[in-house]
Every structure is written in C-alpha cells, then in structure tokens.
C-alpha cells in the first residue's frame, strides 16, 4: 500500500524531508497536489514525474457520480481564479473499483478527497474506499456548500465534529479534514475536528468570491454567481488561517492557498504548516509542485530544513510564527 512509501531511492539522495502526518500516513516529502487541481493523477502522470511528490489529493469524490455545474465554471480575476465546478466526479464506486487499483502501482501516496451532503454520504464513500487498496488516507472536504438539509459541516464546529466522529468510528485510515476559510472562527472548527478524532487538518479551501461582467451587468459564473477563489491572491489570507489553526490544534496542519513557488511554500511552513498542497499553480505550470519540491530541497541543503539526509523519524517542524491570532486592524 502506498500509505507507507518506500524510503527515498538511492538515485535521489539529499535531505530527508519525510513528513509523518500520523496513523500511518508518511509523506515522502511535504509537497502535495491539492484536491480538484490534479484529478485522480492520470492526466498529470503523463505530464510530470508524479511519483516524486509527497502526496496526491484527489478530486472531491461523492457517493454517486456528479456531472457538475453548468459553464462557465472558471473565471479569472486579478492574480487568481474563481471556480464553480460543482464536484464533477465519477463517484466513489468508479474510484474504488477502477482508479484505486492503479494507485497501488504508484509511489506517490494518494489521499482521496471525500465530499457529501450528509453523514451517510461520507460513510458510504469511506466504506467503499476502505475496501480498496492503494489509498493512503482520506481528506474530508467539509467545505462543500451544496448539501442536503442546508447544513454546512465546514461552517459549524458542532456539525463538523459530528461528521468527523462518525467517520472516525468507521475507518482506520488517516483522516485529514479540509477546513473552509469562510468562517468566523477557523480555529474553533479545527479544534472541534481534532477533538472528534481527525488525524490532521488541511487549510484552506477556496474563498467565496464573485466576478461581475460590466457588459452583461451580471456575474460571470452561473447560478448564484459566486465561486471559489484560489491562486496567489489568497496567500495572505491562507497564511493567517494556517497560523490560527496551528495555534489551535496539535495535530499536523497541511497548508494550501496560493502557493506558486518554493518561497511561498516556505512561508506556510513558517506559519506552522507541516506540509503543503499546490493547487492553482499546477494549471499555470504542470510542474509547479515539483519545482516547489526542488526549491525546498535546495533550501534544506542550504539551511538545514528537515533532517540531515538519512536520519529517520519525526516530522518536519517549522518555526512557530511570532503570533497567531487576528491583530487589531483599522
């Protein structure tokens, strides 16, 4: 199973950047591909050396296949993009029955991002996926706003905890929870899911944004007109969120939001992340995550991030930030 990857092969010597996220999920290095920006890996495998990466977080996967939202689904804004994909995915059965068998042949750990409208949806997904090999862990996407009965797990610590407790009771695989930044208190949600048994958290998902087209005098994206904002513009917001989460929990934190290069990734590590995910940058440059990794490796060689080559055990630790809660502004 890819959850415990082989040690770095002899042809890639250098600093050992493995990150132990707990419950058997050891990333070969701290750089993953963010959910929804790398599909299930099949496309990017053809473009880059995916197996060098620390993890692949799959597209959000639901109990039943979903055809997604009507177009336009993406719209560019200054330094970022909005998306309204609508969890277009082939459904858990296809992922478990067809894709997972492929994953067993890959060196990169594959973490399946799971989404649902209610607790049963999530449990149904996990049950099916637990029966398959090749899956290194789960990332619960609790930031999906289109769910039954209007409940939104990512925005309510109590509901989030309930969901995590239920899934925790069901699977022994690593359970990462992907936090929504569109909340009053992300630290409270992080604490709630930690207490409920999450092994780690990833922060953050996209920010609710809107693009207006002056010509048609209306939003560009369909439906309610809003979409999820990602890319370089969200980095300062995501860094603040990661620092707040880091201060609130003791489980590992995976930082995501606007990482374009190794310097950005380093900032997330400084803010308290144990690992990072590269999302939108992959669209701009399919090799972005590899370049982030190479940059971190170079940095580790120079400045001693990570352990000296060969010394096993323990997660990469970042210097905690000087401060972690919202300062007064204005």
């Amino acid at each position, binding site marked *: 199973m890819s959850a415990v990857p082989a040690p770095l092969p002899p042809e890639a010597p250098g600093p050992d950047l493995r990150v132990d996220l707990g419950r058997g999920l050891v990333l070969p290095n701290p750089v993953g591909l963010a959910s929804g920006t790398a599909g299930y890996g099949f*496309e990017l495998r053809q473009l880059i050396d995916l197996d060098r990466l620390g993890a692949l977080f799959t597209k959000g996967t639901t109990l039943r296949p979903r055809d997604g939202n*009507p177009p*336009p689904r993406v719209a*560019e804004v200054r330094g970022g*993009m909005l*998306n309204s994909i609508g969890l277009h995915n082939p459904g858990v059965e296809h992922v478990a029955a067809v894709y997972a068998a492929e994953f067993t042949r890959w060196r990169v750990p594959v973490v399946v991002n799971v989404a649902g409208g209610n607790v049963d949806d999530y449990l149904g997904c996990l049950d099916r996926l637990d029966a398959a090999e090749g899956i290194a862990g789960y990332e619960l996407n609790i930031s999906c706003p289109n769910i039954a009965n209007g409940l939104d797990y990512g925005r309510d610590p109590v509901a989030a905890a309930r969901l995590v407790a239920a899934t925790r009771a069901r699977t022994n695989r690593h359970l990462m929870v992907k936090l929504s930044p569109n909340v009053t208190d992300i630290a409270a949600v992080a604490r709630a899911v930690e207490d409920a048994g999450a092994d780690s958290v990833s922060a953050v998902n996209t920010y609710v944004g809107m693009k207006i087209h002056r*010509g048609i005098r209306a939003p560009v994206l369909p439906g309610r007109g809003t979409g999820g904002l990602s890319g370089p513009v969200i980095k300062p917001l995501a860094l603040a969120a990661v620092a707040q989460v880091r201060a609130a929990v003791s489980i590992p934190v995976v930082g995501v939001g606007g990482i374009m290069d190794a310097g950005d990734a380093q900032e997330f590590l400084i803010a308290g992340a144990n690992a990072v995910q590269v999302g939108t940058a992959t*669209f701009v440059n*399919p090799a972005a995550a590899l370049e982030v990794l190479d940059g971190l490796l170079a940095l580790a060689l120079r400045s001693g991030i990570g352990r000296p080559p060969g010394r096993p055990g323990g997660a990469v630790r970042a210097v905690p930030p000087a401060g972690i809660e919202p300062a007064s502004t204005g």
Partner: protein
Amino acid sequence: MSAPLSDLGRARDQSGEVLAVEALGGGLVEITVRLPHLAATARPGEFAQLRAWDGVEPLLRRPFSVAWTAGEACGFVLEAVGLGTRLLVALRPGDPLRALGPLGNGFQLDPVPARALIVSGGLGCAPFPHLVRGLRRAGCPEVVVLSGAATADRLYPADRFVRGETGVRVMEATDDGSRGHRGFVTELVPEHCDETVAVFGCGPNPMLAALAAALRGMPRPPHRAEVSLEAPMGCGFGTCLGCALPLAGDHGTVWGLCCRQGPVMEVSQVDWPGLLALPPAHVA
C-alpha cells in the same frame, strides 16, 4: 456517448522563441514561434496552452490552436481581445514563449474523405491551415475552404489557408459584402455539400449552430461533420474540470470537457440549444 479522451502522452511544456509577429489586417495577427516539439507532434485541430509573460497577471495560460507548422516552427493566429492576447500580439522576435501541447482532440483525418469542406468564421480560421495540409498529405484529393468574416479586412488571407498546397480552393463571404459572397459563410455550404464530403467547422458558436442546422436540413448531408469549440479553460489538460461544454446525452445535456473530449467534436455530439444558451464567448 461521451467523446474519447485526448492523448496527453505527446504533450510537453516547451519554451520557445518568437520568430515573427505579423499583422494581417483587421486586427488579426499571426505569430510564428520556434517550438520544435509542438511542431513535430501537433495534429490538425489540436491546441497549446501559451504563456508569454511573468507574474500573475494574467494568471492562467491561454489556449490557441496550432494554425500551422513548418519545420521547427508553429504558427498561431489570434487577435487582441483581452489582457492575455494583448500581451501575445505585442511580442517581438526573440521573445520567449512557453507552450504546453499538443493538447485536445483534433480533427479526424481517418478515413480520408473524398472531399473536405472547411467552414471558417472569423478567428475560426486558426486551426485550418494545418488541417488543409494534413488532409492533402493524407491523400484527400479536394479541399474547399469557405472563409467568412464580418468585413473583407478581417478575412484570413486565402493563400495562408493554402500554404502552397494544390487541390485547395478558398471561397469567401463577408457579412457586409465587401468581399466574396454577401452574407453568412454558412449560406455557401449547401452548394458544396453532399454525402461524399466531410465537413470541418470552426467559428463563433452561433455560426457553428447555424452550420449544424444547415447540415441537418440538407437533402444530401455530409457523411461526417466536426466542429472545433471553445470554453474558458483553467488547465487545458483535464484536471480542473472547468471547460465544460454541453454535449447531447441520452437523458439530456451532459457536460463534456472541451480540453480533452474536444475541442473538436462531432456535430451530433453537441447539445446545440445548450451551447447557444451559454453566455457569449466574451463573458469569462
């Protein structure tokens, strides 16, 4: 039935050098770039994701059809409509340009049709020089290009469709009658169409829908008809799922991916009312 997924195995991200930038008139610009890999591998109708700027404004690459190849060079035909295209048409010889490609499903050359009818509207000309040559080299004896534009100065030059190939005729139409047939280019289709023909279309959605409608109503419809479509793209290689196009499913519209199931689709695969219901191309 959803269209087959394109082959990504040939795609490569290559840094090339701009060799020439020519203004063709009417705002059309043709850019020649040294991109050996793309030139060697791109099939007619395939596209590349281009970037020729640093920084994050614009953030995403922009998709462009490979207009033609010549040795190690590729041609692109475009117009400045927004920031990305403005930066592209402002390039100068020697400037660097990155191209990820070839991407997407191109036009089907196999089986080689007895006659090819190419219907080009405005910037829809872009994929066709490469297709004309591809068809002729594959043995297609006769290629007719119906080339339409709003005005004469916006017509892609006929000799650039031909690029020295024999057996190619170009017929022109302009909305205002300033050159060739006065009216829509699709009005020229019936007289060139019968079941021996394969039709290849590219242009604005309303034009393509008119083409599809014309073909449906024809006494002797072509044995094959394909169109190249556009959608706003995030990645160009199938992972963002952003480039949805309405395809005709068994139970109504299904969303297909322009970048991997297209950009070239069989006319029958497209949900034409769904396509026409989308916001116009300039809204993205």
